[in-house]
């Protein structure tokens, strides 16, 4: 492959040229039990995508990291009416996709299938969400796979660098909780923990069903109303909680030792922005300049000009209450120092030299031009609507995207750079051979050493 840089976080944009790009029409309704329903008809292909999204995630794990995402995965283990084998067979036989996933603030169940199969598969999706069995034997198997998965993830630094970074930035607050948990926390989880989590958070007034694809809205609305009519919330609704802010009171380095590493994987940055921040759209453009495309400053310097790495990028990873900014790359062990120095020097151009008007115009054209293919399929659109539900984003952010991008001037770009890109007390995670890079790490802040083979993503309690 030529490169690995991709502007994966560009959730919204519009296409270059004059034509508007607006979110296709969709209908939002709320059932009497509080369930939000989004319906978007599209008839380009005979496929229907269904996304169930629950407003909960690892931030709700408390002292049981991994519980939320385990619960999400466990909805695939069968319902009180159908076994896991029945469900797997029903979906697999029809060539349907079925997947569950979880992150810090949302838990999802996704499916897509041929239009003709809606009548057979949609009731099963409803059962999995409303009345999962959490079968003990199946849950034990899933838990065991998750445990091994946690060990295997650490074989590849790129899989875990973000977990260390979030742990470092958010300390003891809910946003620091590793989404997949730790070996100790996953081992301790029991069936009743999963059942309890499901009861607390999987409730109609805390969830949405998004259906996008080849159907008639009136028919689908009736089908959803019928399938989810008996879903009832019990007990008080979950309360909004404070999930924490980035702690960057001093420059810090977490040096994660991986003795057999042949390269150093790194991430550098600090606090970012929330998903519904009013500056979200223009910051996507600024990040495109910094590290969001192939000709970004970071990729240009670290890859193209110096050949130090195969790819360098940056991103504002947004959450509902806040977010983080991070520069990430990797380099051969002997190049660690030059790569870190160059990354920081390049980052400082933002303040030292600022963004040239022509560069800004190019980035604006780029984010607009790359937008429409992000919402080409029914699954992509279902995912967008689900994100909008969880992060309280209105359709105006999508529909006004082009206007907001076009409105970005060099002066405003400068002001936004000053305001949002973390400049002081940078936080750094280095995963590599500690014996070789220890002296380099010390130059960038207070060093804490970790062992990649130790459980979890933070320093081991003494």
């Amino acid at each position, binding site marked *: 492959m030529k490169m690995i840089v991709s502007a994966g976080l560009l959730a919204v944009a519009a296409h270059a040229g004059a034509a508007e790009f607006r979110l296709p029409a969709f209908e939002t309704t709320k059932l009497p039990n509080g369930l939000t329903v989004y319906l978007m008809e599209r008839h380009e292909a005979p496929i229907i995508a269904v996304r169930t999204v629950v407003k909960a995630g690892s931030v709700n794990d408390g002292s049981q990291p991994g519980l939320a995402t385990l619960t999400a995965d466990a909805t695939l283990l069968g319902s009180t009416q159908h076994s896991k084998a029945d469900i797997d067979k029903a979906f697999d*036989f029809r060539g349907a996709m079925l997947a569950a996933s979880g992150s810090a603030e949302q838990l999802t169940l996704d499916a897509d299938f041929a239009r003709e199969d809606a009548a057979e598969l949609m009731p099963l999706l409803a059962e999995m969400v409303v009345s999962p069995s959490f079968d003990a034997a199946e849950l034990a198997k899933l838990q065991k796979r998750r445990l091994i998965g946690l060990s295997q993830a650490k074989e590849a630094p790129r899989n875990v660098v973000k977990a260390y970074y979030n742990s470092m930035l958010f300390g003891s607050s809910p946003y620091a909780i590793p989404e997949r948990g730790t070996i100790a926390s996953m081992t301790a989880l029991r069936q009743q923990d999963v059942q309890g989590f499901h009861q607390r958070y999987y409730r109609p007034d805390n969830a949405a069903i998004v259906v996008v694809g080849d159907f008639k809205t009136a028919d689908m609305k009736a089908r959803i109303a019928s399938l989810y009519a008996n879903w009832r919330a019990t007990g008080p609704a979950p309360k909004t909680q404070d999930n924490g802010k980035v702690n960057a009171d001093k420059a810090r380095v977490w040096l994660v030792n991986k003795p057999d590493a042949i390269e150093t994987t790194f991430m550098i940055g600090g606090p970012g922005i929330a998903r519904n921040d009013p500056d979200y759209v223009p910051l996507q453009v600024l990040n495109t300049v910094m590290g969001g495309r192939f000709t970004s400053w970071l990729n240009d310097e670290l890859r193209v000009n110096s*050949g130090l790495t195969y790819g360098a990028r940056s991103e504002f990873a947004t959450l509902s209450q806040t977010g983080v900014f991070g520069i990430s790359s990797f380099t051969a062990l002997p190049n660690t120092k030059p790569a870190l120095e160059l990354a920081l020097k390049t980052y400082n151009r933002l303040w030292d030299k600022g963004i040239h008007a022509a560069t800004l115009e190019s980035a604006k054209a*780029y984010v607009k031009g790359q937008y429409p293919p992000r919402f080409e399929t029914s699954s992509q659109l279902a995912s967008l609507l689900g994100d909008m539900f969880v992060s309280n984003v209105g359709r105006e952010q999508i529909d006004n995207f082009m206007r907001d991008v076009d409105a970005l001037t060099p002066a405003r770009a400068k002001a936004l750079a000053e305001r949002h890109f973390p400049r002081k007390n940078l936080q750094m995670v280095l995963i590599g051979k500690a014996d070789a890079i220890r002296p380099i790490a010390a130059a960038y802040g207070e060093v804490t050493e970790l062992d990649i083979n130790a459980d979890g993503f933070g320093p081991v309690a003494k």
Partner: protein
Amino acid sequence: MKWKVLAASIMLGAASLAQAAVSADARSFTLPNGMKFIVLESRAIPNANMYTFWKVGSRNEQPGTTGLSHFFEHMMFNGSKKYGPKMFDSTLEAKGGSNNAYTSNDVTVYQDWFPAASLETVFALESDRIGHLSIDPKLVESERGVVLSERSTGLENSNIRLLSQEVSGVAFQAHPYSWPVIGHESDIKAWTQDDLVSFFKTYYAPNNAVAVIVGDVKFDEVKRLATRYFAAIPKRALPPKVRTVEPPQTGERRLFVTKASATSPNLMVAYKTPQANHPDYYALEVLQSILAEGKTSRLYQALVEQQLATSVGASGSDGFDPGLFAVYAVAADQVTPARLEQALLAEVARVSKDGVTEEELQKVKNQKLVNLYRQLETINGKAQNIGWYETFFGDYRKLDEVPANFKKLTRADIQAVAAKYLVKSQRTVGVLAAKEPE
């Protein structure tokens, strides 16, 4: 459950979709210099893409120049006559476009994604580098570092990639499929300027490429611009054919890879199978899915559900020359490579011995067709499929035959290919783990 009725409805849907999307709408033309263009107008989004398939990959290399086709994929972005170093990317991005490229054993494919209004810019950029690439020695040096980093990060972060590379090296003793597409480290460090110049002249002739343009464009306009920008690039002699034929394998081969950070053993079993355009291709595709696609697949049921493995997978042979059909698994906790291998081979043998069920076969046919839906839902999926069928099957219209080719397969066909190809003498067994067993 009404399996059969549903299956029928799925099949009709996919067939009609494929025809509507490709044969009815796609049109092609060939310039006098032999460069072929296939155009599919598609108006769902105001964007378009251009995929250029070049018939050059690692199979066209020799010892000493391994990895050169992939390296060239990088060099094609490093400057040409009108657009100097870095200008390809900066020009395209300023017009709202982006690009990427990939290299396989058989082909190198360049992909441009852009607002449809930027088509002419894309043609100007592509034609300039095809016709007038400049190969600057300074840029060659920095790009070497990039490729070495790409190579090392792949080996650092992917056990399967490392194992797969070693398995191919043992499975093929003569044919160029034996070396990794990215090349050997020593070769990456050693390519000369002459190697690069000669490689470009040999393989980047317009008559060795097919370009696919899909999106919100008009056929006549594409033809007009293609003529304007590409017609002047001279036709050249076609590249030399790959002469080496892999000699028949005469017995099982085995290998072990040590990687200290591996937390559990990885197993790969690869069988020799024919090239993509062989009549057995579709039956082998189905066999691959029966073994490893989805939670009801044979290997998932026998290995993952039985807690012998945490994941399973399979990959098929789809090149110009006979290749490998590989199945792989990552061991669960406390499961030895030998036990995992025994269970995996038992499942493979069961297909040859007892065949597959009618329901299993129908399931995979359904999966193949819904997957085709999904692929043809995007302009990228359309371009990739059109280019792939044109390159490996000689005609993009063969894409329309896909539903029928799957539909006609019988249980006996699947059992026959399993019995013919998935045999001990044709397999290479590779294990990757932290320590070699004593």
